[in-house]
């Protein structure tokens, strides 16, 4: 374990924040660029993971375990979200034979 903890000591916290914001931006880009509902879903998972990395890094940085417990809760909620979301996508596919989100524009009020 000694080598593991030594590994991290040379990395400034800023680089973790940069990594997380770049990953978050890639997720936003995926939501904006793609039209496939499942790929948009995966992009949202990317954004959640960016936040998870940031929380874990801050938790290790401050020596406070609450951040890592929060990451655990985010993972639980993400699992529930994926289950319900994929069920909705399967239902949409059954009704429209497509998972193109542009078909869903009839949801407009």
């Amino acid at each position, binding site marked *: 374990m000694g080598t593991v903890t030594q590994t991290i000591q040379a*990395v400034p916290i800023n680089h973790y924040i940069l990594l997380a914001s770049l990953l978050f931006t890639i997720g936003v880009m995926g939501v904006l660029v793609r039209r496939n509902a499942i790929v948009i879903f995966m992009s949202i998972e990317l954004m959640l993971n960016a936040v998870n990395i940031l929380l874990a890094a801050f938790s290790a940085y401050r020596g*406070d375990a609450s951040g890592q417990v929060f990451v655990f809760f985010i993972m639980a909620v993400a699992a529930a979200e994926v289950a319900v979301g994929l069920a909705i996508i399967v239902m949409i596919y059954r009704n429209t034979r497509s998972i193109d989100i542009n078909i869903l524009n009839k949801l407009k009020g």
Partner: protein
Amino acid sequence: MSHSLFYLLSFITLFFALLVVFAKNPIHSALYMVMTFFAITCQYLILNAQFLAIVNFIVYMGAIMVLILFSIMFLNLNQATEPQKSSLLKFAGVISAGLLMLTLVGAILKTGGGDVPFELIKPDIGLVKNLGKVLFNEFLLPFEIASVLLLSAMVGAVLLAKKDIN
């Protein structure tokens, strides 16, 4: 060794995340996503958050990605059925995301103060033993509520996905 491991893992994470977004075939997107999650698991390991690494490995790489891959195969999606945005909209999306990145990175660099090398004050907070103590003392109520949430999500998913029997 030393800290170059972090930069290597960051590069792998961002590279595969970009491939997730730009792969034409949804199956390839999902497989690149598995690689991204694997790199993130390694990030947790070098942060010495071993519990999170294991949970990330089992829940994200195991459960969630299998669920997504299964539904992609179930819906028979491939390159031929993939809907494409017009290139103008794609360009606009990339530009907007780039502007967001510019704002975030600029704000971080301008704030400063985070350049001191990282020091793990308590290196063992991420171990299962310590996290279990925190989880079952301070966060007992949210933990129980999370179980109710998972149960209701399961019921909701079954209810949504099953065919109407009329």
